[in-house]
């Protein structure tokens, strides 16, 4: 597990002896803070990301590390809770003295960390969060490698004409991600003269979506656009089948995890389309086949289930991005790394990682534009439909 | 407290009260009067409706029909605390004190209505708050002295001897500054000495002009203190009159036959 600050040191600190004792002596390693949900509702995803990050760290260290030093991940659990996410950032920056961080999975978690970045001027690579606000609120320490829904929707614009969609209903998870997707994809659809029907939401913890699905079943639309995490998606596909829904289902968001769907939803997953940013089923078709193969082999070697790869690759890419930036900066200091991130360029598992400026002038955040793929599940197999 | 004035002026009047619980008739058409300064006892076998009558008078129960009036004003739609504000205070059969609070604090709670401080006085600690508290403390000490448990004032009410708890219950009722007291089996469970002490207290209260309505099973005591007795059986009044008349009333004797053994049990 994560390397934790020595128990007695912190105990001493909490016993209010002196803060001076907490400082870590000697910089034998370069620390990278990882702020992820390891308990609570997002625990599964957070754990996947952390596992991916560990693969990256081990790979980098095996090749000699960065700037001649090994990198060390300081992994902390933000308990799927914004207050904790902010506290964790505070701890990573001030107690562990990390010069750069990766986090914090969910958008509200990331948003809670952002004021801390401003306060301490420490950069953070955002690996999963999709809220538009993250890169548009004028925080120059944010570098995002995951696509916000607007980017995904823009990529979908090119695919859309090749599919037969006349009218679509939306069924999205009731959080920033789902609502953001419904909005951005809605715009794209309308621009292409596709009618948008119902926009239904489902609670994050909901297990039974039959009511929403029944409502959608009764409309004259031909397509359902779905945005949610894989667990809920599994249930949703099963329930849609049980209700006898024959409409075309397209999911967005890139963490649908088709393998888990095939495994758990069975025949219900057949014929569904998924927009994803990483296609591990066809390593040769990914932008960086060598890295993809290495990552997948390592993932398998560590005994993780293949299905987790579609979430965890973000952690892998995030840490690799940070490592490249540190190398470029020449020193493990926040300011140098922030500047270096702007120059960082590497081939990630889902395309080129290069940060473009977004948000108010003078304090722009970085946003990388990954590839987006459309895949289809056919007879329990993932295929890249040639459209 | 009121001086003892005109003898036969009615203080409390119960007019054709009936109480039904679903199909069960607890009280059917009950009427009687308690005059100012009088000590009246309400007796009857278990289940006769005595405590129900108490609950109706003090606003804990709404009567199905009929009216209760105190000094001319109807009590029918009043909440219990509003009834208390009119000067009627009661004690309870079983738990009659605030157990985990000190004896002194018990009486301070009882003095609630006499406090003059408002919310703002309290929050801003204005002089009126301190003045009011000082007055209440003095009054609490007086009341404890009156019922004779002033030496116990720092103890927890729950740790008092049973008899003292009953006395504290009366002190609590007195703290509400009543012109009329309703006592629900005040001496049940007391030994002879305690009962004697209690009867003395009742005499004192009567001397202060407090009207008293008593529910009690202890016949010698009832006969000793009452001016008049009202006898209930199966929810209706079967006899009414001075102690001597009640003692010889054949219907009363019949009602009590066979009930002797169970007399002490609660109803």
């Amino acid at each position, binding site marked *: 597990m994560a390397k934790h600050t020595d128990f007695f040191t912190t105990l001493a600190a909490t016993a209010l002896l002196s803060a001076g004792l907490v400082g870590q002596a000697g910089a034998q390693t370069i620390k990278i803070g990882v702020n992820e949900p390891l308990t609570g509702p997002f625990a599964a995803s957070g754990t996947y990301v952390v596992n991916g990050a560990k693969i990256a760290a081990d790979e980098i260290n095996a090749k000699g590390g960065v700037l001649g030093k090994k990198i060390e991940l300081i992994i902390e659990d933000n308990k799927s809770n914004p207050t904790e996410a902010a506290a964790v950032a505070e701890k990573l920056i001030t107690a562990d003295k990390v010069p750069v961080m990766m986090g914090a999975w969910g958008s509200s978690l990331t948003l809670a960390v952002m004021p801390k970045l401003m306060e301490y001027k420490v950069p953070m690579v955002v690996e999963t969060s999709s809220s538009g606000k993250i890169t548009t609120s004028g925080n120059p320490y944010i570098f995002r490698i995951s696509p916000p829904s607007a980017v995904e929707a823009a990529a979908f614009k090119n695919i859309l004409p090749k599919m037969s969609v006349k009218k679509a209903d939306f069924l999205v998870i009731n959080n920033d991600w789902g609502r953001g997707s419904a909005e951005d994809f809605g715009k794209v659809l309308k621009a292409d003269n596709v009618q948008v029907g119902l926009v239904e939401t*489902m609670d994050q913890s909901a297990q039974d979506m039959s009511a929403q699905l029944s409502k959608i079943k009764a409309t004259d639309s031909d397509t359902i656009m779905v945005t949610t995490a894989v667990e809920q998606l599994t249930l949703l596909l099963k329930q849609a089948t049980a209700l006898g829904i024959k409409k075309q289902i397209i999911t967005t968001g890139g963490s649908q995890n088709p393998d888990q769907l095939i495994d758990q939803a069975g025949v219900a997953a057949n014929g569904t389309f998924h927009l994803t940013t990483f296609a591990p089923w066809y390593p040769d078709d990914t932008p960086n086949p060598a890295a993809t193969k290495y990552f997948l082999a390592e993932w398998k070697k560590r005994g993780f289930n293949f299905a987790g790869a579609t979430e965890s690759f973000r952690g892998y890419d995030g840490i690799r991005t940070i490592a490249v930036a540190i190398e470029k900066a020449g020193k493990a200091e926040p300011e140098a790394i922030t500047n270096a991130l702007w120059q960082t360029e590497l081939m990630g598992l889902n395309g080129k990682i290069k940060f473009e400026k977004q948000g108010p002038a003078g304090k722009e955040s970085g946003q990388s534009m990954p590839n987006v793929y459309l895949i289809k599940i056919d007879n329990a197999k993932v295929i890249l439909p040639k459209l | 407290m009121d001086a003892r004035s005109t003898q036969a002026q009615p203080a409390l009047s119960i007019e054709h009260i009936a109480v039904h619980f679903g199909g069960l008739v607890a009280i059917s058409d009950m009427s009687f009067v308690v005059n100012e300064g009088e000590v009246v006892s309400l007796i009857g076998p278990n289940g006769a409706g005595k405590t129900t009558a108490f609950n109706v008078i003090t606003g804990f129960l709404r009567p199905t029909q009929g009216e209760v009036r105190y000094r001319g004003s109807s009590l029918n739609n009043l909440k219990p605390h509003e009834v208390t504000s009119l000067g009627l205070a009661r004690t309870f059969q079983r738990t009659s004190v605030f157990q985990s609070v000190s004896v002194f604090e018990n009486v301070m709670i009882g003095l609630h209505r006499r406090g003059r401080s408002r919310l703002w006085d309290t929050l801003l600690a204005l002089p009126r708050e301190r003045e009011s508290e000082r007055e209440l403390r003095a009054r609490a000490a007086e009341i404890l002295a009156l019922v004779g448990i002033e030496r116990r004032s720092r103890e927890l009410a729950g740790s008092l001897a049973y008899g003292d708890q009953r006395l504290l219950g009366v002190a609590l009722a007195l703290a509400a500054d009543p012109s009329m007291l309703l006592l629900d089996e005040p001496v049940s469970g007391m030994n002879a000495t305690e009962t004697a002490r209690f009867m003395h207290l009742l005499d004192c209260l009567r001397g202060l002009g407090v009207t008293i309505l008593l529910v009690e099973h202890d016949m010698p005591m009832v006969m000793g203190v009452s001016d008049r007795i009202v006898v209930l059986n199966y929810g209706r009044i079967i006899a009414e009159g001075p102690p001597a008349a009640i003692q010889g009333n054949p219907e009363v004797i019949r009602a009590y036959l066979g009930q002797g053994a169970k007399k002490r049990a609660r109803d």
Partner: protein
Amino acid sequence: MINMLILGSTYALLGIGLTLIFGIMRVVNFAHGELYAFGAYFVYFIAVLLGFNFFLSLLISIVAGGILGALIEVILLRPMRGADIDTTMLIMIGAMIVMQNTEQYIWGGVAKSVSTPFPEMPLVIGPFSVSWLRLFVFFAALALIAAAYFLINRTKLGKAMRATFQDRDTASLMGVNIQAIYMATFAIGSSLAAAAGALLGPVYVVSPQMGNIASLKAFAIVILGGLGSIGGATIGGFILAFAEEMGAGYVSSGYRDAMGFLLIIAVLLFKPTGLFARSERIG
């Protein structure tokens, strides 16, 4: 509509367990949802990991739920007998936190799914279609509800339980072993929750978070039916399912889960003892 009945039957199972525990023991059982999750995980464990027969696994997890319930009662609740309702409630909240995170520690946060011997294609009758598994769940839940009724109304244990519910002191005087009754009550309540979990686990997925929402729903059901009323809990389960479906269908799916709570507030304001409670004094 069919879906509503199916949902309602499992809600009723959850509710009956909780209401039994509250009615007889006066314990507000916040760990109820965790017993539900336990049932689901147990089925996953023996049916998927150990490869037992699906139906046998269901039975075993119901029994296991009962045993776990009995243990909780003996370890956590028995020493606190006589404590007020807040105290035991806090203990159960503590137990809830411990159980939920133990599940996550053992099984990880990734949701598990349980495969069943039922065909995946639904049964189609005219315009309606329903999955075989859900149909099975519905009848199994009904059978369990019937069993609970039989237990409470027709057996000696049930009689003692009812006596304890009416008046603990009197029951104790009549020779009812209160300790044993409490343990049995908690065990039965727990096994009903575990049964609901075991039945729904294969329908949905099994995850450490599944208990949270189940606890809240169980409370809603019990309040609707009146605390301590078994018949009430049964009907309450169906009412909640109905309200949710209606709420999602006609108001807005975002407010689906609010329906149950609004219903609770409304019921308590207009009929504080619940819709079907025997007249029980509050206080």
